[in-house]
């Protein structure tokens, strides 16, 4: 039997909750398991007033865990590692010497979301992504939101992610972000917050799918105990979304990858294969008379829709970065003429920039005339002098990020940093304040996770993938990332993060118990 380390009293844990002790109740096997771990002192100190138990939607899983011999679990974890390695589910770490291809650790304890929580998240995500698409169409055409004075003009036009070449370019159905990965966390108040909207080339969905495949293969009995809503149809949904992005019947759809040295190469091959579309590199394509073709063994073939996993600036050396060897010369011209659809559209990065993030609730009100369903995290914009001085004075309590940063690079987590690191980062921020934003340190919710010492709480986030075709769609759940180092809040795979299978429970369960505290 695996001992489980209880979460700190102040954390919101997805699986475990402290509650009033009822002295007459017999201890369940699961509770005894909780007390086996070294950290008994805490449970003892709470013993008189509080006891720890699984939240209702985790009870079937908790019971299963209590009943499963630890040797069996250890065996199946080893099997999972082996399978991941064989299948080659890897990502590439930049800047690392030698063995740059690494496995992404996948934890076997699932993150479970109640049906009610998901209904709430799905509504909020649909609203948010709809508003962002309207915002993108607006700023590249009428700019009504700037004229209304809701966002300062220089915030958009001075933004390096704003593609001036896209002004006036007609994007089919005004769908700019066909694929969005929204990073969501739950704070210790039990509420969900959106951390950022990834609108350029969000990745990670293949890990969501592989985690599920692996869990079903290794723990089939778990899926008989509870209704876990399926996610396996994501590639079909994505293909439908891509096909809907054009008005052409039976379009030729391809996936453009930077190649096998890209960190997400596994995902590119996986998705292309699952959708049954061609995986192409820039060198496989050429433009003739403003149409895009791929070089095939049968001669040139027209391409109608491109799901690109390559940043804007590399897409076309004639239109953007002239040094790009990864792109296709003339692609932008073909795109601007409407002869190919590129998903996501060029120039979406302006809306997921951290300096624009604070305005998303305003966008929702402006374009949809609705109250935002999902919470934003309070954000200090260092470009504002008052915010800057607040940030500099409180840096050790804040998370400070580069506005264009991604992947957990170029950021400072105040509470985890040394005085020296804070001091150094303050100088960097002062040198270029408009390049930074800061947010209060959220205490990301935790979830029990296998670590060397046994099962212990680790912080997690959630990235659902929102698809926009003729309508907004998503599979229930998303990718749960977990910070494997004790106490760490950084979940990025490049920084020692792992992943978990994410279960959204079916409606016939009655998980409403938890719903009140999460909204």
């Amino acid at each position: 039997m695996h001992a489980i380390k209880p979460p700190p009293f102040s954390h919101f844990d997805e699986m475990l909750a402290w509650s009033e002790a009822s002295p007459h109740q017999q201890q369940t096997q699961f509770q005894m398991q909780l007390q086996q771990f070294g950290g008994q002192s805490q449970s003892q100190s709470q013993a008189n007033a509080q006891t720890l138990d699984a939240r209702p939607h985790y009870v079937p899983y908790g019971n299963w865990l209590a009943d499963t011999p630890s040797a069996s679990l250890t065996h199946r974890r080893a099997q999972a590692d082996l399978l991941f390695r064989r299948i080659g589910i890897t990502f590439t770490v930049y800047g690392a010497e030698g063995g740059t291809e690494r496995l992404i650790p996948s934890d076997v304890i699932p993150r479970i979301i109640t049906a009610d929580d998901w209904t709430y998240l799905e509504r909020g995500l649909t609203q948010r992504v709809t508003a962002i698409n309207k915002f993108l169409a607006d700023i590249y055409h009428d700019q009504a939101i700037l004229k209304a004075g809701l966002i300062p003009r220089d915030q958009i036009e001075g933004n390096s992610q704003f593609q001036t070449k896209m002004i006036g370019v007609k994007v089919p159905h005004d769908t700019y972000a066909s694929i969005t990965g929204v990073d969501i966390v739950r704070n210790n108040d039990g509420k969900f917050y959106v951390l950022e909207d990834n609108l350029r080339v969000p990745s990670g969905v293949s890990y969501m799918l592989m985690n599920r495949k692996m869990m079903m293969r290794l723990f089939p009995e778990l899926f008989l105990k509870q209704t876990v809503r399926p996610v396996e149809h994501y590639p079909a949904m994505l293909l439908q979304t891509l096909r809907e992005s054009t008005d052409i019947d039976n379009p030729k759809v391809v996936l453009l990858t930077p190649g096998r040295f890209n960190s997400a190469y596994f995902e590119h091959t996986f998705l292309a294969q699952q959708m049954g579309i061609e995986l192409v590199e820039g060198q496989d394509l050429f433009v003739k008379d403003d149409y895009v073709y791929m070089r095939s063994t049968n001669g040139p073939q027209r391409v109608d829709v491109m799901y690109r996993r390559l940043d804007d600036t590399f897409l076309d050396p004639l239109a953007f970065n002239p040094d790009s060897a990864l792109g296709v010369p003339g692609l932008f011209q073909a795109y601007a003429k409407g002869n190919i659809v590129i998903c996501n559209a060029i120039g979406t990065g302006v809306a997921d920039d951290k300096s624009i993030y604070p305005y998303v609730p305003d966008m929702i009100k402006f374009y949809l005339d609705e109250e935002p369903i999902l919470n934003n995290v309070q954000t200090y914009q260092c470009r504002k002098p008052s915010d800057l001085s607040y940030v500099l004075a409180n840096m050790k309590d804040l998370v400070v990020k580069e506005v264009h940063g991604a992947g957990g690079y170029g950021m400072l987590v105040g509470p985890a940093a040394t005085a020296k690191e804070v001091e150094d980062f303050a100088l960097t921020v002062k040198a270029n304040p408009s390049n930074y934003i800061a947010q209060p340190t959220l205490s990301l919710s935790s979830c029990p996770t296998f670590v060397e010492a046994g099962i212990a709480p680790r912080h997690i986030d959630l990235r659902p993938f929102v698809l926009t075709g003729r309508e907004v769609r998503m599979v229930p759940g998303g990718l749960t990332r977990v910070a494997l180092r004790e106490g760490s809040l950084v979940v990025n795979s490049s920084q020692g993060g792992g992943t978990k299978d994410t279960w959204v429970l079916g409606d016939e369960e009655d998980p409403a118990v938890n719903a009140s505290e999460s909204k």
Partner: protein
Amino acid sequence: MLSRVASHLYWMSRYLERSENMARILDVTQSLAMLDRSADSGGAMTPIVITEAQAEFAETKLTATYANVIAFLAWDKKHPSSIRNCIEATRENARAVRGSITSEMWENINDTWILFQEQAKNIDPMLTGNEFFEWVKERSHLFRGVTFATARRDQPYHFTRLGTFIERADNTARILNVKYAEEAPDSFEEKEVDKETDYYRLSAVLRSISALDAYRDTYHDVIDARRVAEIMIFDAMLPRSLRYCMDEATKCLDDLPKDSGRIPRRIASEINAKLRYGTVDEVFDYGLKRYLADFLVDMERLGTAVNAAYMELH
């Protein structure tokens, strides 16, 4: 199908075939080492000569002992055609197109690479080499078997097979070229060699292309140098003979898009015609060494034409 994908598949199987052939050559080298115990023997260099790695080997400044040669050809990281590098190149090519091959094929070759990295640590060229070479052959057989059993018979499959047979024909010609032509330029029949050593050398050559049993079944007679050449060049049923390889390569090309394949198909048919309608007597009248040199030039022309027809990114 993308030209780049065709190229990766073709090279994937060429590299795997090359690793297998290297293992075959080294396996034989290792057993010949037991016959030939003189330390500075030229025999140790034979596999280096077959695979044209003289310059690379000279750079290592190692002495030409059997152990050094085997270690160099098996797992030297700097030698592009070492077994190690061939397996890695196979896996890298497969990884570049893993969506175009079956998941069984990918998992098999990925597994081979993972296992190789674990194995390589504990190999002593003279002690456990044999086991290792057997393993390399087995992994190659396994991949071909997985391909045979899981791949759809469409373009990716044909390109994969084309790579196998072009590489294999090239290799068989090289083994024959070095083993014979070097030792007895034109009329080796008359050359007086120690009969016993000759028997072992010839049977080793046959073993290196899995042809010893076939030889016995075909000729029911002692191993004779002329017949060894005949079976390796002209046998229509032996899977590593030049004739068989070119029959298969021609078939693969016939299954690929015909419009772009005109030139490689013509060259392959020309090579094939020489094998179909040739005899071993003609070969020896012409000179075996010259004949094989011509063949290798033809194969190079074919390789270039295949590349230009399907894989070049114009």
